[in-house]
C-alpha cells in the first residue's frame, strides 16, 4: 500500500534528528511491500504497447496536477536526439534532410528501427552500460578482456539483461563469448563491501552502504541485516591464481550499532533468506583444498571447479525469481528511463526505496512487469521508451518557470558523453558530401572509424553525472589546446573547412557551417553575425573560418543533446 509521506525532505544517514519535527509512521515493511504494490487490476493491461502506456500515465499525472506539457520536438531535433541516444552521435546532414523531408507516416518508427539495428547501437549501449556498471575499477588482465568487450559482444548477440546479469555474476571463463565478463567481479574482489554495494547499486538500484554501520535511520527497508545479507552472497568469491573461485562456506559476523555481534544470513534485499547449512567458517581441510585449487588453477591456467553450493548463484536465481525480481526489473527500467529521458522515474538512481517513491508509481510497476514478462529484452524496452510522445517532447522553454522535473513536461537537456561529443565533433567538422553515396555498410564502417579516431580526444572530457557541472578546464581545453585545434579545426581534404575555403560568399559559408554543425538552417541573425565576423577578417579568411567553426562547435547548442 502506498503511504502518504509529508512533503518535508530529510537527510538519510544523519547522526542527529533534524530540528523540525517530522511525523511519519516508521513502517517496518519488507522491501517487497515497500514498493507500494499496486494491485494488478489497477494497472493497464499487459498487452498495450509500451509507448501507449508511458503516454497514458504521463498524461494522467499532468492532467491531475494541471501541468501543461510542452509541444513535441520538431523533426530535425528529434532525429538528432534519437541518433545521439541510440547510436551515440549526431546525424549527418544527409540523414537529417532525408528524415525531415520524408512524408512517410511511419518514419519515426522506421528511423528508430534502423538505428537500433545498426552496429552503432551495440557500441553505444555497451559504452553506456559500461559507465553504468562503474567499471573504472583498476587492474585487469588484458588477455581476459574488459567488461566493455563483453557487453559489446553480448549486446550484439541480443542477450537479455537477465542473461547479462547472470553472465557478469557467474561468468564462464572458458567461454570465448563471455570474454571480459569475469572482469566485473575480479576488479572488486579485494573489497567485499565495495563489491556488495556496487552490485546492489548497479542491478537493484539500492545503495545500502550507510546500512553497513547501522540500520538506515530513516529508510525502514534498509537495515544492517540487508547489507550483510547481500554481502554474504558475495563474500565467498575470491581470486584463485587469476581465476574466479568461490568457497563452499562462509560466515559473516557483524557488530550492530546496538547489541551483540550477529551472524549474517544469506538474505536478499526483499528479506527472503536462502536457507543453507554452509553458514559456517571453512574447516581446515576446506582451507587446504582451497589452496590446492588455487595452485592448480595457476599451474593449469583453468578456473577451479564451482562449489557444490554457490552462494553467488543463489543470489542470481533469487534475484530473478518471480516474486523476488521487482528490484531487478524496476532498476533496469529506471536506468533506461534515465538514459533516454535525462532523469529517472526514481531519483537518485540508487535510492529505490519506499521513502523515495516515483511520481508515476503505476508506470514504473507496469514497465517492470512488462520487461520481466518479456524476457528482459533491452531493445524492446528501449524502443518502447523512445517511441513515446513523452520522450519526444521539445526541450524548448520560453516561460519564466520550469515545471518540476518529475512531470517530464519539457524534455531535459543531456550533456553529451565524452565519446558522443568527440564523435559528433568528427562528423560536424567533416565535409558533409563525404557521407554522400555511401552504401549502408560503407557508411557504418566510416562512422565506426570516426568513432575510433575520436576515442583519444574523448579521454580529455569528463563523463557526465547527475547535476553535472562543466568545469572551466573544458573551456580552457577548447580555447587553448593544440590538440583540439589539430583534431577538429584543420582544413585538409575531406573536412568542412576544406570545403568552406573553396567558397567565396560569406553568406554561403555561414549557411553551410551552421547546417553542418547544428543540423538546421541558419537564422538571419546568425548568418549576419558570421558574415560580419568573416568580412572583418578578409585578410586572413582561413583563420577566420576556423574561428567561426570553433564558435559553433563549442557553443551550448552543439554541446548538448536537446
Amino acid at each position, binding site marked *: 500500500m502506498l503511504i502518504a509521506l509529508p512533503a518535508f*525532505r530529510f*537527510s*538519510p*544517514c*544523519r*547522526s*542527529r534528528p*533534524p*530540528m523540525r519535527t517530522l511525523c511519519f509512521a516508521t513502517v517496518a515493511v519488507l522491501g517487497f511491500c515497500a514498493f507500494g504494490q499496486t494491485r494488478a487490476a489497477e494497472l493497464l493491461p499487459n498487452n498495450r504497447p509500451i509507448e501507449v502506456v508511458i503516454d497514458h500515465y504521463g498524461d494522467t499525472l499532468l492532467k491531475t496536477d494541471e501541468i501543461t506539457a510542452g509541444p513535441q520536438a520538431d523533426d530535425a531535433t528529434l532525429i538528432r536526439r534519437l541518433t545521439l541516444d541510440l547510436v551515440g552521435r549526431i546525424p549527418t546532414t544527409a540523414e537529417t534532410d532525408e528524415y525531415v523531408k520524408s512524408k512517410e507516416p511511419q518514419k519515426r518508427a522506421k528511423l528508430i528501427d534502423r538505428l537500433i539495428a545498426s552496429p552503432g547501437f551495440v557500441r553505444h549501449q555497451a559504452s553506456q552500460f559500461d559507465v553504468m556498471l562503474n567499471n573504472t575499477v583498476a587492474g585487469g588482465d588484458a588477455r581476459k578482456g574488459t567488461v566493455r568487450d563483453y557487453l559489446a559482444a553480448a549486446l550484439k548477440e541480443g542477450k537479455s539483461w537477465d542473461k547479462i546479469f547472470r553472465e557478469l555474476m557467474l561468468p564462464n571463463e572458458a567461454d570465448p563469448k563471455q570474454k571480459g565478463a569475469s572482469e566485473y567481479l575480479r576488479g572488486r574482489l579485494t573489497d567485499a*563491501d565495495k563489491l556488495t554495494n556496487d552490485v546492489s547499486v548497479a542491478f537493484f538500484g539500492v545503495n545500502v*552502504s*550507510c546500512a553497513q*554501520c547501522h540500520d538506515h535511520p530513516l529508510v525502514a527497508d534498509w537495515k544492517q541485516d540487508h547489507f550483510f545479507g547481500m554481502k554474504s552472497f558475495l563474500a565467498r568469491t575470491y581470486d584463485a591464481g587469476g581465476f574466479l573461485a568461490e568457497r563452499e562456506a562462509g560466515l559473516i559476523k557483524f557488530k550492530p550499532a546496538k547489541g551483540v555481534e550477529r551472524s549474517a544470513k544469506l538474505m536478499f534485499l526483499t528479506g527472503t533468506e536462502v536457507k543453507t547449512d554452509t553458514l559456517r567458517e571453512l574447516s581446515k581441510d576446506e582451507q587446504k583444498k582451497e589452496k590446492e585449487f588455487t595452485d592448480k588453477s595457476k599451474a593449469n591456467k583453468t578456473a577451479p571447479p564451482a562449489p557444490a553450493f554457490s552462494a553467488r548463484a543463489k543470489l542470481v536465481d533469487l534475484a530473478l525469481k518471480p516474486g523476488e525480481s521487482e528490484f531487478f526489473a524496476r532498476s533496469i527500467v529506471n536506468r533506461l528511463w534515465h538514459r533516454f529521458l535525462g532523469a529517472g522515474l526514481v*531519483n*537518485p538512481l540508487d535510492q529505490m526505496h519506499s521513502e523515495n517513491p516515483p511520481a508515476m508509481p503505476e508506470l514504473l510497476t507496469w514497465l517492470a512487469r512488462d520487461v520481466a514478462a518479456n524476457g528482459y529484452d533491452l531493445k524492446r524496452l528501449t524502443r518502447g521508451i523512445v517511441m513515446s510522445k513523452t520522450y519526444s517532447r521539445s*526541450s*524548448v*522553454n*520560453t516561460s*519564466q*518557470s*520550469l515545471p*518540476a*522535473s518529475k512531470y517530464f513536461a519539457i524534455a531535459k*537537456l543531456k*550533456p553529451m558523453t565524452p565519446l558522443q561529443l568527440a564523435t559528433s565533433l568528427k562528423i560536424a567538422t567533416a565535409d558533409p558530401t563525404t557521407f554522400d553515396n555511401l552504401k549502408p555498410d560503407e557508411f557504418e564502417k566510416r562512422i565506426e572509424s570516426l568513432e575510433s579516431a575520436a576515442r583519444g580526444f574523448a579521454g580529455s572530457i569528463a563523463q*557526465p553525472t547527475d*547535476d*553535472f*557541472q*562543466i*568545469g*572551466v*578546464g*573544458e*573551456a*580552457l*581545453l577548447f*580555447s*587553448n*589546446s*593544440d590538440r583540439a*585545434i589539430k583534431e577538429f579545426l584543420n582544413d585538409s581534404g575531406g573536412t568542412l573547412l576544406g570545403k568552406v575555403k573553396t567558397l567565396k560568399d560569406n553568406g554561403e559559408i555561414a549557411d553551410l557551417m551552421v547546417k553542418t554543425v547544428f543540423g538546421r538552417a541558419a537564422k538571419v*541573425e*546568425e548568418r549576419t*553575425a558570421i558574415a560580419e*565576423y568573416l568580412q572583418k*577578417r578578409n585578410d586572413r579568411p582561413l*583563420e577566420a573560418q576556423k*574561428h567561426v567553426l*570553433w*564558435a*559553433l562547435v*563549442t*557553443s*551550448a*547548442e552543439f*554541446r*548538448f543533446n*536537446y
Partner: protein
Amino acid sequence: MPRNFFCGSTDHALTRRSFLGAATFAGIGAATGMSSLNALAAPDLAKDLKKNQKRVILLWLAGGASQLETWDPKPGAVTGGPFRAIPTDVPGIHISELMPEMAKRMKTTCIIRGLDTKNGDHGGGAKLMTRGRRDESGVKYPDLGAVVAREMGRAESKVPDYVTFYSQTEGRISGDSGFLGSRYAPMELTSGNSPEFLKRLDGINELDHQQRADLRDMFSKQFSREHSSNTLASHNEAYERVRGIMASETLFDITKEPQKIRDKYGKTQLGEQALIARRLVEAGVPFVRVARAWWDSHGQNFETHQEMVPELDHVMATLTDDLKERGLLDDVMIVTLAEFGRTPGINSSLGRDHFASAWSMSMTGGGIKGGSVYGKTDDKGQKVIAEEVNAANLFATIYSALGINPHKNYYVGARPIPLVDPGAEPIKSVVG
C-alpha cells in the same frame, strides 16, 4: 540581513533573475540568484566585506593521517606506538616528536582532538568532512571551498575563487559546489601544478581570441534563452571565466619565486603546491585545497608516518612562517583535515586502520585562537572524553572564525538551507 528572494510560489521563482535581465537562468533546484547576489552588493558594502578578506588553505590529508602520530600522541600507551611526545612553545601542549617544527609554532595553531564523526569509509567520510554534513538525496551541499569562494570571492575577480590540487590517483575527490552551481566549482589540478591550457596559442591573436569567444557566446546565449538546465548554465559559466583564469597564469608559475623561498618549502610536491597556494591566496584566491595523498597506512603505519609526517611538519611550518612574514596569517587559515583518523589498535602488519571515533584536526591563523587545544581523548585514544566535536560544529567553528555567520541561510528555490546543520554551534573558545 535576511534576504527573501521569492514570494514562495514556483510560478514566480525566477522573477528576481528575469528582473535583472540575466540571459541565462538555472532550473529549479539551483541556488538561483547567486551570481546576481554579487552584482547586487552595493560597492561600498562590497568594499567593507572584502576589507579583511579571509582565505583558507586546506591541507587535505587524504586517506586519513594518524592523530596518534601527529596531534594527539599517547606515548607509553599500548596503543601509542614508538614515537614520543614533545613539548611545544605552549606550556601543557605536546604533539608527536615527528612534528618538531610545528612544535615551535603551536602559538599560531589550534588543535581539535575530540572529533567523533562516525564515518570510517573513505568516500562517505570524505563527503562528510569536506561539507560538514552528509548530502541528502535531493540537496547537494557545497563543500567548504565552494562556500568560502562564494562568501569571499569577488564578482570581478581575475583570479579563480577555488583551486584544488590533487595530484595522486588514490582516493581523488573532486571539489563540489553542490547547489551553489558552476560559478563556485573549483579549478581542479590533477596533474602538474599549473592548470593546462592557460596560454593563448600562437596561431591566434589577442583580439581574435576575445572576439571568437564573443561569437561563441552569441550562439550559446541564444540557445540558453530557450533552454534551461544547471549543466547548461555551468557550460556558459565555464567559458565566461576563461579569460579571467588565463590572466592568473603567472600565479601558478613557481619559477617566479626566489630560489631561497623555493628551497625553504623544499623539493617535494607538497612543498611546491603549498608555495603555489601561498601565491594564490596572496593574490586574493579565497580557497585553495592542497591534497596530500595517501595516508591510509593499514600496514606499516609507523614507517609511513615516519616518512610523511616530517614533510607535513616542515611544509606547514614554512607556510605558517611565510604567511606571517607577509602579514597574512591573521587573514589566512591553514586547516589540516582528513576523512577520519586511525585506530589506536595496531594490527599485525604494524598498521592502523580507519577510525572516526576519536581523532584530530588543526587550524592555524585566519581568526582562530592560536595555542589552544579543544577536546580530550582517553589515555589510549579510543574515545573522546571531553569536548566532543562533530563535522557540523567543526564547520560552524571554521565559518565563524572566518567571519561567516554559520547560521545564515542559502536558498534553493524557496527553501532556506542553513550553512551548517541546524543546532550546530561554533566552539566559542577557539574562535579568536
